[in-house]
Structure formats: structure tokens, C-alpha cells
């Protein structure tokens, strides 16, 4: 089938359906191919029978499919309907759980700003396009899962786009494609914390803070993975890989 997008009317219908859908239900068939709800987005063929092991595989698949397209244009407002259509096309994988609607439809206005980053399909593409293999840390989960780690890594653009940060997170928190224990834990408030408690220390939430502090004295965008891990405080040592990671590509002329 050719790559389609939902029209405005199609998106409206999809949102209404999402608001009242029950477990195991599939979107109305017209949202996939009817002329009233969809339109051709890009004239390329897409295999809708493909089964993905995780969202990383999906992000890679779509990145390769859209390799000749302008990625930023793909992520623009104009193509929100395309990401919604892709979610419908693979709904048997994305929709196994009944999660909040913003995981299935691009939501530009939420209670605290844009929630577009929470879209399961769109963010998989964006993170793979930006970070390639290093995006595994946030996309290693099942197609239907968003996850706390993805939330922590993608909710702030200055973190989500920071190449060194994501590469360091990938090296610290993933072992053989799986998340290391304690990676997503958070440090408890001081009043709840027991003396000597280390829960959350060295975790991904603390990494954001540590990198922000490093920014005061280093141009962190050009730090290689091994260099950045070396500069992190002691609490990250438990997560540091035994074999130092190779420095991945450093910052280009313009990087976010």
C-alpha cells in the first residue's frame, strides 16, 4: 500500500474513536484507505504486514523508507496526519494497550505544552533519525510501550536532541539490548530517603542534571561518549561499561 496520511476529517474521526475505544478494538477500516478520511502522503510503497520486535526496529524501518525525504518536513505540523495513519496501519502492534490518546495521535497542545513527543510512531522515527544506534536506549521497548525512560529522555528537546547525552545514556543504561536495573529509578525526596540510600543515584534523571552542570564548563555537544562518561560524577561509575565505549561521531558544525 502507498504511504497515506489522515485528512483533517479523518483525524477528527480517529480522535473520536480513540476517546471511546475499548481493549482489543481496532480503528474503523475507513481510516486506513477511504478517500474521505485519507490522502496520499508520499508515493512510496509500505509493507503493512511487517512485525517489529520493538520501536527501535520501527524507527529504523521508517527512517530507511523515508531516507530521501526531508526529515524535518516529515516531522512538521503538515505531516501529523501521516504519523496518525501509520499508527492505524500498525495498530495491532501499537494499540495492544489502551494508553492515553497522545500516544496514537500527534497532540500539539497539551496541559503543559506540546505532547507531540509522546507519539509512539513519530518519536520512534525522530529519535532513530537523530541518534541512529544510540536511540536504542529509549526505543528498545515493545511497540505499544512508551515507558518512563522514554519520557525522561524525550520530554525536553534540549535533552532529546543532545547527541552526547543520548550516546552516554545508551552506553550507561543498556546491556545486551536490555535496560540495566535501576536505570530509570529516581532519587527519593530527602525526607523519604534513608541514610546511605543510593536508589536513583546514577540513574537517567540524574544524568540530565549532571550533563546540565557539565555544560557550565564544557562544550558537551562535542564530547565523545567515553570522554563524557569519564567526566561524570562518581555515582555513575556503577553503570559505566566495563569496556570503555568507542567515541561515536562528534558534533557537526550545527547541532542541537
Amino acid at each position: 500500500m502507498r504511504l497515506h496520511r489522515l485528512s483533517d476529517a479523518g483525524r477528527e474521526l480517529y480522535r473520536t474513536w480513540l476517546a471511546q475505544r475499548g481493549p482489543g478494538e481496532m480503528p474503523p477500516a475507513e481510516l486506513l484507505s477511504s478517500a474521505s478520511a485519507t490522502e496520499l502522503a508520499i508515493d512510496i510503497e509500505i509493507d503493512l504486514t511487517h512485525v517489529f520486535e520493538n520501536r527501535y526496529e520501527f524507527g529504523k524501518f521508517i527512517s530507511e523508507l523515508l531516507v530521501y525525504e526531508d526529515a524535518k518536513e516529515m516531522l512538521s505540523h503538515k505531516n501529523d496526519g501521516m504519523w496518525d495513519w501509520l499508527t492505524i496501519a500498525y495498530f495491532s502492534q501499537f494499540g495492544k494497550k489502551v494508553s492515553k490518546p497522545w500516544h496514537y495521535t500527534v497532540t500539539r497542545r497539551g496541559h503543559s505544552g506540546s505532547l507531540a513527543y509522546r507519539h509512539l510512531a513519530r518519536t520512534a522515527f525522530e529519535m532513530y533519525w537523530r541518534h541512529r544506534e544510540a536511540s536504542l536506549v529509549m526505543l528498545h521497548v515493545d511497540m505499544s510501550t512508551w515507558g518512563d525512560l522514554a519520557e525522561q529522555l524525550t520530554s525536553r528537546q534540549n535533552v532529546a536532541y543532545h547527541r552526547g547525552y543520548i550516546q552516554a545514556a545508551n552506553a550507561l543504561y543498556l546491556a545486551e539490548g536490555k535496560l540495566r536495573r535501576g536505570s530509570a529509578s529516581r532519587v527519593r525526596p530527602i525526607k523519604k530517603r534513608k541514610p546511605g540510600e543510593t536508589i536513583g543515584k546514577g540513574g537517567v534523571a540524574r544524568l540530565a542534571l549532571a550533563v546540565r552542570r557539565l555544560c557550565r564548563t564544557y562544550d558537551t555537544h562535542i564530547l565523545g561518549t567515553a570522554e563524557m562518561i569519564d567526566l561524570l560524577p562518581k555515582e555513575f561509575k556503577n553503570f559505566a561499561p566495563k569496556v570503555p565505549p568507542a567515541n561515536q561521531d562528534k558534533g557537526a558544525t550545527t547541532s542541537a
Partner: protein
Amino acid sequence: MPRLSTLSNPTNLVDIEKQRVSILIDESNKRLAFSLARLEIADLSLPSGLNVVVVARRGNAEERVELGPVVNWNKGFAQLTELGDEGTWSFRVLLVKPGSAMLAAAAENIRPEGQGDSSSFIALEPADLGQRPWEIRILEQEGRAVLCFNNKIYHSSGEAEADKFFLGMILPEAARQLAAWVARNPSALADAAWEGFRDWLALHGITDEPNEENVDAQDEWCATVVSAFCERFQFVTMLAEARSKGVEE
């Protein structure tokens, strides 16, 4: 993780004062662009051969741009493709040795020309807000908030500041919303960026940190902050005077 001390400077980073830097932004075309128009560092005794890197920030987004050697940096407008249409602009100007990631000098929190430079923790800025008269945005990384007012009501922050009724009626609620955010995120106060707000609280006798678990105690803490804020700026006196002046006229 030990807290950063503002008194130590182990890497001998040179602080470039804001007055030495001018940045212009161009929002007239579809794409955003900026120019580092002025950077006066001749008398700072910096090492030679440094390169200029600018980090542009808007809202929660940032973009890094290299401008070349400091002796002849690119003064033209550089396009920014990663930033959105909304949020407050701020820039970092970094000087680094080629091949090194360690900063030799930095100018932080630079506001572009014509965008005002409020160092207060609630700044005023015009914004396109449709039919909403105002909204407050918390700039977590900068330790302050921006009160965005509708640019159809006031064209500049100076114009908004001159309207005592607007300030007197709106600022206390803006302060309450800022305090409520801090009360929900008390760990932010430990961050160096929030030092200014922390000092302001201490100066007004508020040394207790908000209670993270007790919502009633949080509300009480917010009320204390708002009272201190209103006391400091004497809003009621200001409004009463403005009103009586209006009646007399």
C-alpha cells in the same frame, strides 16, 4: 552529586559580562536566524586561537552553532532550524580552544537586542496568545519565569510595565503560580540556576523549603511567598493611588 559552588572555578573559566555581547535576531522570514553582532573581549587576556560557539535557546529547545575563530567570527545571520516559534530567547556565547571541549570563556543568558533584559525572576514579554490576555511560563533552566502578555494589548514590556493596573492585578497571581511550581518541584531550589529566587526568598524571611508531600502546606508556603512579594512591591498602595488619580482626573 556535590552541589556546584559558585565560589570555585577549577577550570579557570572566564566570565564574559553581558554588556560585552550583542545578539540580533531575525524572525521576519519563515526561518529564524541570529547574528552575534558584538563581542568585546580585547581586554580580557584570553588565550589566542579560540573559536566562538553560540548556543541559542528558546523555550525548552536549544541549538548549537559554530561561528569560527574569535578574531574573525561569522557576523552574518545564521539560520536556526531546531527552535520552535514559542518561548523566550536566550543565548550562550562560548569560547573554546580548537579540539578541546573545555570552555575558556562564556557569556551566559544573553538576551537578544530589543527583547529586554529583565534580571528579575518574573520578566515581562509580549507574545501571540490569541484571546488569552496573559500566561506564565516557567523557565526551569534559568531559574525564573516569564509573564507573557498578549501583544494585541501591549506592544512592548515597557508599555505593559507602565500600566499599573495590569501589573498590580496580574503579578501577584503570576508570583503564586511561580511559587506553586517551585512547591511541586522543591528539588529545583538546589539548582544553581534558582539561586536568585532562593536568595530573594531568604531576603524576605522565607527559609523553609516547601513540603513536597503535603498539598495544604504547599498552599500555605505559596501564600507566604505571594504576601512577601506584594509587601515588597506595595501593590495595594500602588493600585489605590492609581485609582484615586484616575477618579480625580
